[in-house]
């Protein structure tokens, strides 16, 4: 059912080796494994707010990187790729920055009527692809 187990008797959980040159990912998030809004979709668009941009000189490390990167809108998954973070880490940090007002977020539309209109626009857009 689970397919072949290539990780051996110790299991994948024990085979992880610490890399002394890198921070363990979850140290970046203060030990939290879930973002404040743990339903933030990986395609959700985040963008730096005017207030967030004003805070930039006072921010450090990954937080600063995210706020700088998101001067242009990025998906949560794109933030992870661009800044070399695990997806889960990016999600936690982005969720925090949305909560603190540094970032604004646009999530997938859930209203059926709006969704239908959006789908029609996406179909037209794909039809127009070269």
């Amino acid at each position, binding site marked *: 059912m689970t*397919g072949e187990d290539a990780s051996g008797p110790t299991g994948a959980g024990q085979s992880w080796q610490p890399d002394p040159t890198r921070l363990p990912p979850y140290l970046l998030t203060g030990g939290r494994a879930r973002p404040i809004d743990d339903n933030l979709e990986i395609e959700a*668009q985040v963008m730096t707010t005017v207030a967030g941009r004003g805070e930039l000189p006072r921010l450090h490390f990954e937080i600063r990187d995210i706020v700088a990167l998101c001067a242009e809108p990025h998906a949560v998954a794109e933030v992870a790729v661009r800044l070399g973070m*695990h*997806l889960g880490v990016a999600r936690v940090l982005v969720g925090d920055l949305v909560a603190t007002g540094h970032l604004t977020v646009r999530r*997938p539309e859930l209203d059926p009527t709006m969704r239908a209109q959006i789908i029609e626009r996406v179909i037209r857009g*794909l039809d127009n692809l070269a």
Partner: protein
Amino acid sequence: MDWTTSPESPRPPPSARPPVPDRRPPIPVKIVIAGGFGVGKTTAVAAISEIPVLTTEAAMTEVAAEIDRTGHTPAKTVTTVALDFGRITIDSEIKLYIFGTPGQDRFGFMWRDLTEGALGALVIVDTRRLNDCYPAVDYFEKVGLPFVVAVNLFDGKLDHDLADVRWALAIGGSTPVITFDARARHSVRDALVAVLRRALIETTPGSAHSGR
């Protein structure tokens, strides 16, 4: 990278500035591409994406089905899986993301993450390894995500009748079964449009799956 304050954008004193409204980010939409290992998911993403395929590392937690041989509690392991995705800018306000599911047929909690909010899914099928797509078909049926089954024509010919594929996968008559070529941009585009047309039917207010 340059983290200093950009010199070419001098800011007027706050008192002289009218309040600047925050720009609104674009609307994100997502389609998931699923199927067995090596069936052409990343190929399809690459064929249609406007950017080179991006790969992000995601943790997938799974509770082992068997009792851990060293103890009596079920083993919980975290595996890192690679998630490939691409992007298509539809217009000034809509960005479409195409996410390929990880190759293995094990389903961790990441699947909910991956499909949450998705418009629909494309399940790619290799008729020589039909079994590989069962987990995806089962999952999408269970969560009510509209999907289309697309037989990837690796060598340009179809080994099985599409009706046979439909029968073997035991999928309902309302789910389209199509053929496509994962390497060809236009073919992938048409397959995604088929997913969206299916999604449109399901999304129309009053339909069985319009609520969440």
